[in-house]
């Protein structure tokens, strides 16, 4: 029997990282994720790892770059404005094919915004927030159990693909407390980090870089990266679908919005409404094929997000005109209530069935 614990979301991430073998954390204070560096500051000491409070997010992500190049399981965390500051090095990490786990507990934006939960960094996370053609593997947990599981998985996938992986949470998930099972970490078989800068006695020196100036060299590097992202699309898609088979209307939502939406969907289903629920767990790769297979003229989709409609674009691309895709969302760190969604969905249902 796994240990059942009651913890705060941010601390769940920190503890999961440590149990998954993360021994290097660098971060910088920003609300609403301060519990991560605070927890790491004493817990890393116990675990025999390294905690560094950087002088800025720029420094924090670059420390991760250095630690990762040396072969460590390295992680940083921040919230929206801080993640924006890190983008240059996120691009470098991808260019240099360095694994890293980056946690973004999103808050309201743009600008300084506020410190409430939000999902307005979807584009930044899944479309590549920095320069160049790159992708992050992006996980969107919606409860604390998933925070635990996906944080652990993120380290494995980062090493497997030699690519940064992002945990895209939000202020609500970070601050909330609920029970979860402390599933033990089981390390999968992963290739040795033969590329790491771990000392080159008795071997050829390794080179880690993202600068390629030779004719066609950079294009070749890009083709390797693209191949990697294609493989992610093939193998890493995760989603959850509930009652989609006979649904006339399917709600698509991720992260905390999905959790809120699910309450409303369940209520409608109890009332006999044929409504489905589809939750992408990976935002990149996006479960596009799965959504397409559900699309058709007799079926509508509604995406619910805590932003002005970002994943909406990916849902529309996925269904490719075969279904109508509607949107309900709130911005500026406003949290949708299940009642609000219930009423909205009921209205949609009425217009769908009646006229």
């Amino acid at each position, binding site marked *: 029997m796994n240990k059942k614990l009651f913890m705060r979301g941010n601390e769940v991430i920190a503890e999961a990282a440590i149990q998954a073998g993360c021994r290097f954390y660098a971060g*910088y*204070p*920003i*609300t609403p994720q*301060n519990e991560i*560096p*605070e927890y790491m*500051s*004493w817990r890393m*000491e116990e675990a025999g790892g390294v*905690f560094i*409070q950087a*002088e*800025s*997010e720029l420094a924090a992500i670059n420390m991760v770059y250095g630690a990762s190049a040396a072969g460590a399981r390295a992680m940083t965390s921040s919230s929206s*404005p801080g993640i924006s*500051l890190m983008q240059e090095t996120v691009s470098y990490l991808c260019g240099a094919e360095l694994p890293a786990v980056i946690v973004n507990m999103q808050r309201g934006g743009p*600008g*300084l915004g506020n410190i409430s939960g939000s999902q307005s960094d979807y584009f930044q996370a899944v479309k590549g927030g920095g320069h160049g053609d790159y992708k992050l593997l992006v996980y969107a947990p919606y409860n604390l159990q998933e925070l635990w599981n996906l944080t652990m998985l993120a380290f494995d996938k980062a090493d497997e693909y030699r690519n940064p992986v992002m945990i895209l949470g939000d202020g609500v998930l970070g601050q909330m407390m609920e029970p979860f099972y402390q599933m033990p970490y089981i390390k999968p078989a992963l290739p040795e980090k033969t590329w790491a800068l771990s000392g080159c006695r008795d071997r050829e020196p390794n080179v880690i870089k993202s600068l390629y100036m030779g004719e066609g060299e950079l294009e070749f590097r890009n083709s390797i990266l693209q191949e990697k992202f294609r493989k992610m699309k093939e193998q890493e898609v995760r989603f959850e679908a509930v009652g989609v088979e006979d649904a006339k209307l399917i709600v698509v939502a991720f992260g905390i919005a999905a959790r809120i939406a699910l309450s409303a969907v369940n209520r409608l289903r109890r009332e006999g409404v044929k409504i489905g629920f589809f939750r992408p767990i990976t935002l990149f790769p996006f479960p596009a094929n799965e959504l397409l297979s559900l699309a058709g003229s007799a079926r509508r989709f509604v995406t619910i997000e805590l932003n002005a409609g970002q994943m909406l674009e990916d849902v529309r691309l996925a269904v490719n005109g075969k279904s109508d895709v509607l949107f309900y969302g709130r911005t500026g760190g406003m949290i949708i209530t299940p009642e609000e969604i219930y009423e909205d969905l009921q209205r949609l249902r009425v217009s769908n069935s009646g006229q």
Partner: protein
Amino acid sequence: MATGLTLKELSKKEMLLTAGHRMCAGCGAPIVVKMVLLASEYPLIAANATGCLEVSTCISEYTAWKIPWIHNAFENAAATISGVETMYRSLKKQGKIDKEIKFIAFGGDGGTYDIGLQSLSGAMERGHDMLYVCYDNGAYMNTGIQRSSATPFGADTTTCPAGDVIQGKPQQRKDMTRIMAAHGIPYVAQASPSHWMDLMKKVRKALDIKGPKFMNIISPCNRGWRSRTDDAIMLSKLAVETCYWPLYEIENGVTKVTFKPKEKKPLKDFIKPQGRFKHLFSPENEGMLKTFQEMIDREWEALLKASGAE
């Protein structure tokens, strides 16, 4: 005609930071800001780095500032005011403005010593006509008391917690005032709200000097210092009297100590009332206390030497 720096005269002046802001009871920062604003004889424009002062004085749709005020990201107060000041100079040159306006940037120690150091250094080197004021409370109080490079040796914070292994912050604080002086700018000063006359004189002097100026002002924070809410001024006074926070200025390279305590008090007088140093008073940390005192002594001796006093 300049207002005299007397309580009677000053009490007639308009408060440029109004009541109703949301700073904590007993916070040093609004006291510092009020003194700085009150000292000015010129119209002011201020930039504010992200921090307690910024979030608590501009709660959406309200402002506590009676002067034009601009906020930008955490690391950018000095750069932002550089832009404003340069535009002002340009407009002045074009004859579109003739008023004499002064420019101030406010930042906490996080926004000044750490993430904002680059933009501050750049602004000082470019030579903008501005005064940068750091209200130094020695940690990231706004986000929950994490250490900064201004956090003193031995202090307990949420990211250098005192426990079985670590006894608070193991490093020495950064000497920001001297780093700024090393830019060779015309005026650098250290001040404390406990010595309000000294503080306001320095602000007045700074605003009358053309070019970049820097002031570092100690600002007690009862939340982070784990002290009583009514001890802010007492603690800032003890900081000065123990030479933890000497009052001095460096004008065109000449260092002058502006207040020399008659009798230098032991450092523990300043740190004892603060819960963040509580662990330093356990018998096994006696050595740390001694190290801390030696750090302060060394800095004070160096300052006296620089000022030519000894």
